[in-house]
Structure formats: C-alpha cells, structure tokens
C-alpha cells in the first residue's frame, strides 16, 4: 500500500507512491469492415490509483461503456493492454475476477428469482463465506431487507439499483466498476447511493471506476476525471482543475464545451490538431 515516510532521520528522498489498481495502455476497439472501420475506443491510456475514484465522462457513444466492458473482459479489445491489480486481464482475468465486481443498468438480475435467491447465486459464484449472513447485512446497509423475498422483476427502478449494488458488493470487491450507477434514480435515491459508495470506498479502500452522465455526482465522488469524446480521452484531471482550465463555473459547462467543441475546448482541439 502507500509507502509512508516514518523516519525523521531520512538521508534520501522518499517519494510516496500509490500503487496502480487499473492500468490501461493503447486500448482500442474497432468494429466493422477493414475498409469502413468504426473506432468505438481509439487507443486510450490511463491509470487509476488504488483507493481512488475515477470517472469516465462523455456523451452518448463516447466509448465509456465499451471501455468498461473491455476492462471486465466482456469485450475483447482490438489492441492494447489492461492490467487490474497487477494482473494482465487479457491473459489471466479469471485470477482477478473474484476481487472485482460491477453494476450496470444494461444488465439485469433474473426477474423470476427473488432478491435473496439472486444474491445467493452470486454469493456462490464469488465463493462468499456465510452467504446468508452477508446478504442480510447488505440488505440492512442498502435498506432493502423487506424486499429480500420479492421477485427481482417486481422491483421499482430505484429498488433494482440498490439490489444491483448489493450484487456488486457481495464479494467486497477491491475494484468496483460502475456504469451509470444512478441512472434513472430520483435525486434522493441517487444521493443515497453516492453516500453508500463514499462509505464503501472509505471503509474498504476500494478503487472505483464509474461511467456517468451526472456531473454533480462526478464532482462529489471522483478524484480524477477522464473526459472522453469519439473514443478518445480528450482531457483529464481533477474536477476543480478541469473547471479552472476551461474557465467555467462547473463540470457540466466543461462537459458541454468538450461535447460541442466550443469555448476553450475548441481552442485546445485546434492546438492539438
């Protein structure tokens, strides 16, 4: 973990280093024919320090979900490398999958099984010991104890999100990948989910990578923001740094500048071109 400077009698310079939880280099995904390629992700590089929260921001089709799917191994990259917790995901992903988990609104839990049954199945897949107790604990923490014996298909959007989060946390993952974790939630439930993620990260020291369209969520949760557009990372930094760099009031305005190629974003694009 973090190297700490513990001695007052140092004679050499210690640089505190934080290990990298996720390291991505030259990652690309191309679809279509060779003469008409579509670059969903066009060679991106980034790293996520252990214990931090990083956001992938971008408009629809920017490549966020594709990037997360490649990190998880659901999608095979056309090029590049992915290392998570020092494991080469393209070769040995099954070694690290027990320490990962994810949640996405595009992936459901079986509707006909009850919430408890669904979680029991995933507890088995992740080899969670004392599964029943863990499920009860999650149900308490995520406030769905009364829903445990209800079919997953009978839940509201907000309830489904909480249950999906319980599934994502069932193995107490060291790395959590979340695709739009608060999509279609009312502001109260969304705020509640964000608090839960903050608590989990603080207690567990987990690394979180999330794709989001919600700027206030990103400003609140994230240590690092990766701005994506047309499959590329066009800028990165902390939310306050990006706001200052683009001379804007908040991250939403930065997002709009980048998405529309206007303001400071147009200047920067011009420089990079």
């Amino acid at each position: 973990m973090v190297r700490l400077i513990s001695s007052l009698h140092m004679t050499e310079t210690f640089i505190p280093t934080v290990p990298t939880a996720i390291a991505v280099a030259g990652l690309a995904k191309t679809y279509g024919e060779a003469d008409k390629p579509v670059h969903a992700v066009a060679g991106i590089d980034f790293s996520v320090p252990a214990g931090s929260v990083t956001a992938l921001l971008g408009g629809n089709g920017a490549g966020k979900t594709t990037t997360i799917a490649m990190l998880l191994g659901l999608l095979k990259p056309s090029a590049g490398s992915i290392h998570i917790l020092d494991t080469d995901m393209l070769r040995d992903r099954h070694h690290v999958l027990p320490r990962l988990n994810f949640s996405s609104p595009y992936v459901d839990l079986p509707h006909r099984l009850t919430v408890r049954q669904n979680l029991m199945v995933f507890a088995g897949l992740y080899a969670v010991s004392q599964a029943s107790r863990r499920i009860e604990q999650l149900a308490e923490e995520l406030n769905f104890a009364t829903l445990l014996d209800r079919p997953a298909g009978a839940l509201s959007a907000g309830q489904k999100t909480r249950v999906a989060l319980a599934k994502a946390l069932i193995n107490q993952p060291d790395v959590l990948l979340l695709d739009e974790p608060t999509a279609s939630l009312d502001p109260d439930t969304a705020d509640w989910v964000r608090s839960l993620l903050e608590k989990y990260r603080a207690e567990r020291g987990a690394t979180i990578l999330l794709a989001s369209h919600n700027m206030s969520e990103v400003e609140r949760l994230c240590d690092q923001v990766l701005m994506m557009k047309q499959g590329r990372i066009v800028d990165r930094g902390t939310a306050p740094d990006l706001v200052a760099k683009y001379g804007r009031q908040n991250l939403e305005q930065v997002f709009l500048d980048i998405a529309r190629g206007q303001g400071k974003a147009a200047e920067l694009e011009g420089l990079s071109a």
Partner: protein
Amino acid sequence: MMRDISCSLQRIFAMLRRHWYLLSGSWTRVVELIYWPAVQMIMWGFLTQFLAAKTSYVAQAFGVFLAGMMLWDSMFRVQLGVAISFLEEMWSRNLGNLFVSPLRPGEFAASVLLMGLLRTLVGMVPVSFMAWWFFDFSVYAMGLALAGFFFSLIMFGWAIGISVCGLIMRHGLGAESAAWGAMFLILPVAAVYYPVAVLPGWLQVIAWSLPPAYVFEGMRALLVDGVFRQDLLLGAFALNLLYLALGFWAFQAFFEAARRRGQLLGQGE
C-alpha cells in the same frame, strides 16, 4: 489444484442452484417437462397397440416404437434442456453478470449440461412409468443396455445443445428457434423408427456418421432379435466423444466471437 477444483465445483453448484430456484418456483415449468413426452408416449402407445394386431413385426417386438420414442425424446429433451437453461440467461439479460464473475465458460457449459440432464430425468422418468402402467411396457426390461443407450443419446444431446447455445450467444435471440429445431434435422437419419438399411446409400453414410443410428440399431437388435450389440454401443460412444469435443470447441469459439463483437453485454428480450 484441489482448491481450484473445489472452487470450480462451487461455481457449477451455484449455477445449478439458480436453475433449481427457477424450476422449483414454477409448477408450470415442471408440468411442461412431463407434458409433451407424456402426450407422445400415449400417442405412440396406442399406435403400437393398433399395429401389433396388424403386423407380425410389431407383435414380435411390442415396445420397439415406444422405446424408440422414449429414447429419442430423451435425446431431444436433453438438448432442449441445455438450450433452455442457456436461453433463461439470455431472456433475463444475465450473461453480463455471469461472465464478469469468476465463472468460467467451461463451468457455465457444465452447469447447463447438468441442467439438461436433470430436466430430462424430471420429464422422462415419470413418462417411462406411465408407459408401464398404461401399455404394460417397461423400458427398464432392456436392463443395463438401456443405461448404455440412454447415456449415449444424452452425450449426443449435450453436444448439439452446447453448440446451439454457442450459436445463440453469437447470433442473438434471432437464432432462438435453433433450440427447438436443431435436433429434428437429424431425425430422418437417426433410424429411430426404421433401420438405416431403408435409407438411400448416401443417406446411410450420413446416418452412420451420427451416434443415434448406432443406438437405435442396437435397441432394435435387442428388442427384436434379443441380441445385445456391444460393437454398436462402442461405436456410438466413440462418435459421441468426437461430437462432444466439437460441441465444446464450437461453444468456446462462439463465446470468443461474442466477446469480440460485444454481444455478452445487454443481450435480451
């Protein structure tokens, strides 16, 4: 090594648990497993009774059609059971959750194969006793040979079932009808109700390249002539190993193709 095997078994068991929850929570699903084989058995039973009074061949070996029907249906049901168990994951858009968990494709395949067998037993065992009760025909009279015939057909049903799963994973729910139709492609050359010898020469070549022809010829040899043809059973098992290997290879190849095309995320109704 032992720990790997133990974890692997635990994951397969978790998948079996998932399907058990589904089956045990829906009596209509259980009834459906028995309903179609029962209807078929009753229809073939009465046809056999009618033909037994008219032809010496059927009179001599009363159960030849009933046994053929029950063995064919076992093979079809196991293939269908494998495909349905897989389709349940597609219908519920659950593949993404499963394949980011530590579950490996081979473990997933093993779980749907076992579910196919379980669903077949749930359907066919009661039907075999119904045949005994209604028509005084016990398929169990074939003794140990029945186990050989049954498992040989189960293996072939597995091979086709797992290939169909791969096909649907790669091509999406548009290929769903393959789950119900794939096995009927080989019905004319499977020699279920007539010997391979009645087929034209070129179709006989195809028939002998498929395990069911060996099994059903072996079944007729036992029921009509009272001879157990070990050579036919061994031929069927040898071919089954080949087809199972091809089935797993196809599943893995389709799985990798689906991963390349991003079809594991968000497939569903």
